């Protein structure tokens, strides 16, 4: 059983100069993937406008358009450079990400939003180094697990855990619980596909559960973060009015949309601005309220298409590094969308995780474009084994 083609065309010498090079990267752009992210980004524009059009400073749509334009540049650049060259430079990528994560912790340099010290104010948008660190971890783990620099599998596991653990610890200091969980999820998925032994995996899972319990019972989390999680766990939410309010308003918005929704721009919860952070973290509630179950499922379907294309690229990737890149990106996106939609509909605790391609925000959008760029990159070079 094999997904590999019987002949790799690149192994054959071209017989005739006029024969086109069917292995050329540009011939293998995954247009389905591009279409999926384009559709999601466009839906994002509509939802952001609906949520923000009544803001005092006006709709945020023009800014998001600008970010998307920058995103097209980012995805083009990331897809153009052979992913193997990127993976080669993993040490540098990782180092830079860690430096930025460290810099953001220096008081005065960075900006605190919602109690989390995790942003650089770049004027045009607020840059969140945790986002780029997610990409850096994906690239680095791909380099480590897909390469053969460290032959000892146990040692390789330890190094991998350390590489994931460092940025995780650093974002927890900010504190940004959501991003820390993203690192965890990325690490787990890549280690899983990267060939870690089943027994190790079981042990890690146990440690994770114990660790999470310990964190919840310690002082490591700010009150509001604990509130969000305990709100999620406790249906009647006696702790923390604010956290309870967020979740309740979000649920009301989504649920009251019914099967077909109130129609664009007509959702009472949305126009009344009853859902906090609706243009960013709770953007999905706009879709839920205004487009109902039909619209929500349509968005889920687009995400499913996106995830499927990532999964497919992982399958057809020409090497383990490429495969791991795809798995990492897939984990990143899957976690983001599940956690984000999940919290909007009361399934998951509230964290500051944006909905990929749809939530307002330059940092998130550019990161997602770059991430998908890596996968496009792999897809484009699936026949190129040079």
């Amino acid at each position: 059983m094999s997904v590999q083609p019987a002949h790799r065309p690149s192994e054959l010498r071209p017989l005739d100069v006029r024969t086109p090079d069917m292995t050329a990267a540009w011939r293998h752009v995954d247009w389905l993937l591009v279409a999926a992210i384009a559709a999601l980004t466009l839906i994002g524009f509509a939802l952001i406008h609906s949520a923000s059009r009544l803001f005092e400073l006006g709709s945020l749509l023009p800014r998001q358009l600008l970010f998307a334009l920058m995103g097209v540049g980012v995805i083009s650049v990331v897809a153009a450079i052979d992913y193997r060259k990127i993976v080669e430079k993993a040490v540098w990528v990782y180092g830079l990400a860690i430096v930025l994560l460290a810099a953001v912790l220096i008081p005065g340099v960075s900006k605190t939003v919602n109690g989390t010290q995790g942003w650089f104010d770049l004027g045009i948008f607020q840059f969140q180094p945790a986002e780029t660190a997610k990409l850096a971890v994906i690239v680095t783990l791909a380099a480590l697990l897909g390469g053969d620099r460290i032959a000892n599998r146990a040692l390789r596991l330890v190094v991998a855990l350390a590489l994931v653990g460092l940025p995780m610890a650093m974002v927890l200091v900010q504190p940004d619980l959501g991003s820390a969980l993203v690192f965890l999820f990325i690490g787990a998925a890549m280690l899983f596909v990267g060939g870690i032994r089943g027994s190790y995996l079981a042990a890690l899972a146990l440690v994770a559960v114990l660790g999470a319990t310990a964190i919840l019972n310690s002082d490591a989390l700010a009150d509001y973060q604990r509130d969000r999680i305990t709100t999620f766990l406790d249906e009647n939410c006696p702790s923390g009015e604010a956290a309870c309010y967020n979740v309740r308003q979000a649920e009301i918005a989504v649920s009251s949309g019914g099967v077909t929704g109130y129609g664009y721009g007509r959702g009472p919860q949305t126009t009344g601005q009853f859902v906090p952070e609706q243009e960013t973290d709770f953007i999905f509630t706009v879709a839920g309220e205004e487009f109902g179950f039909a619209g929500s499922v349509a968005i889920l379907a687009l995400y499913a298409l996106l995830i499927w294309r990532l999964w497919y690229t992982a399958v057809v990737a020409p090497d383990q590094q490429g495969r791991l890149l795809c798995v990492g990106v897939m984990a990143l996106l899957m976690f983001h969308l599940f956690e984000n939609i999940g919290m909007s509909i009361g399934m998951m605790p509230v964290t500051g995780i944006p909905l990929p391609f749809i939530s307002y925000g330059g940092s998130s959008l550019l990161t997602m474009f770059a991430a998908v760029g890596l996968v496009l990159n792999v897809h484009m070079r699936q026949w190129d084994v040079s």
Partner: protein
Amino acid sequence: MDDTPRLRLSILGIVCISLFASLTARLWYLQVLNREEFAAEGQQSQLRTVHEQGPRGRILDVKGRVLVDNRLSVVVGIVRDEVDDLNSQERSELYGALADKFNSYDIEALKRADIEDQVNDPRYAQFDFIPLYQDAPPELELFFAEHREDYPGIRVRRETIRTYPYGHIGASILGYVGHIDEQEYADPDIRQAAADEGKPYSKEDDIGKGGVEQSMEAQLRGTPGSTTVEVSRTGAVVQVREETPPKVGADVWLTIDIDAQAWAEHVLKEHMSDVRGHRDKDGRIYRAPEGASAIVNPHNGEIIALASVPTYDPSALVGGISTDVWEELNDPASGSPLNNWAVSGQFPPGSTFKLVTLYAALENGLFAPGQPPGLEDSTGKYTIADCGGGPSCVRQNAGGVALGYSDPQSSLTISSDVFYYWLGDRMWRGKELLGETPIQDAGAKFGLGTKTGIPLAGEAGGRMPTPDMWRKRFDEAEKRLEPGEENPWGRRNWTAGDSVNLSIGQGEALVTPLQLANAYATIGNGGTHNKPLLVSKVTVPTDATKAPTAPDNPPLATETFLPVVQDRLPFTENHLAVMQAGFEGVIHNGRGTANDMWSDYGGLPGRWAGKTGTSEAGTDANPKADGSVFALYGPVDAPFGPNFAIATIIPESGFGADTSGPTAVRTLRPLVEGNLPPAPKVGEDRDLPPVPPLDVKP
């Protein structure tokens, strides 16, 4: 590719599928199965009703020139609801920053404590716009629009406020506009009137205060509008549900000619300042603290001008009055500028009152056949036969001069006090026949002692003292006396001496300049007592932004106030002619009390009639210079009778012919000659022509 990654990739795929499935299931549960439950819990949209005042109507002069207009003003205010979200430190920082911002624009008036007081003012509801500063510079409007995030709750609005193209001219007629106070808001009359007009007040509304603004409030006030909007949690407007636009109020046309008004104020003010600081021959200083002239049209009672000095700048009262300004405007030491002395000032009429005394004597038959036709005054003194313990029993002419024989006509011309003492004394002695109050009753016929009823807030009625009044007030005081205390009024009964005092306008008789002018208009026009008319009509303009006289701006509706004849005085025999001749003699007869003044100051074209008056106001303990009173009407040789009647009263400024006389003559001159200088507008670099200085007599 070995099997492990492939297998594990497949497992990963299955995990993803199950995650999607769980999201879909939850959405199905929320949106399809349980929609009703959640939708019912959704916040009902909040409705908010915003009340908006309609712009007030304008106040126009007789020719439709705009005396009080509206303009847009930038108002910086605060919304309490948004400030409530802040903690106390943030709030105090906000107020501090705001005060600093204002101060950086040289607006010192707004201090942090003022802002706090204003925000805590219970008149304003939670979502109301609470004004902090009216007429802010436009730069501030831009600034706050750009820095909304730094100044939460601060809003900038444009509001219509009053503007006064002629500045201080006529200010005390026009009145001003201010926020309705609690007393006014609770006043049942005001509430009822507003309800009748369909313009109920809300607590932050404006209301006319003083002058025409107050008396014509019902007409001037715009109809408030309201807008009901659906708002979001943050207060942004989602949708306008219902909108009733405010309507502009009606324009009020006065009978005042602003040019005449400006000129009357100008002459009055100049001559008052000319006289000030000089002393009379007894050494009493001329203070002339206030003064007033009233000009009426004897044909129909229309008021042409009501000059009151000192004046004030009404624009200082726009948008709230500081305590300092308020106290200054009401300070008697500075002449209480807020008072309209022409209608609210009550002054002793002095000899101008002889009009009333003589009318009473003539019409009560004191000169009927068989009665003495006149009085020979060889001593300058008059002795009251039965003075009954009243004021001193021997009275004399001013200066103790013996004036010889007087009949009713010449008694006016030469202003013989002795003649009038005689009349007063005789009428009191004839009280069995004439009643106790023949003089007072005559005064009432000329409109003295009661308000004329012109639409001006704060009009005073003057006073006609009567024996009844004497008795009442004595008895009232008696009831409240402590044992051993003496009644402050001294005596209970009116005596002949009191009638004698009243006969020459002394004692306790008080008139307003307008009453006096109208009384002389009544004699001038042959006995028709017109009700003074200040407002001629009220119009609803087609376009309130265009000039009321513009040809393309005809009024949509007009309410006209026609002249009202109060009374026609029943002059019998030749009494009217006798009196008119006496008053004409005052001006044109060589012995007339104003004859010298008339020639000194150039007089007026045509034949005129009038009366001088000098009122004694001071006491021995508190000497004051005499009050100068002058009344004039004419030209009596005009085809249809006199066109003007004027009364000028300036307290503490000497004889009637010395100060008020020349003031009245010079005030009327350009009106009579038809060359009134136009009133200067604010911002025009033009003054009225100078008035030659008054020849102040010691």
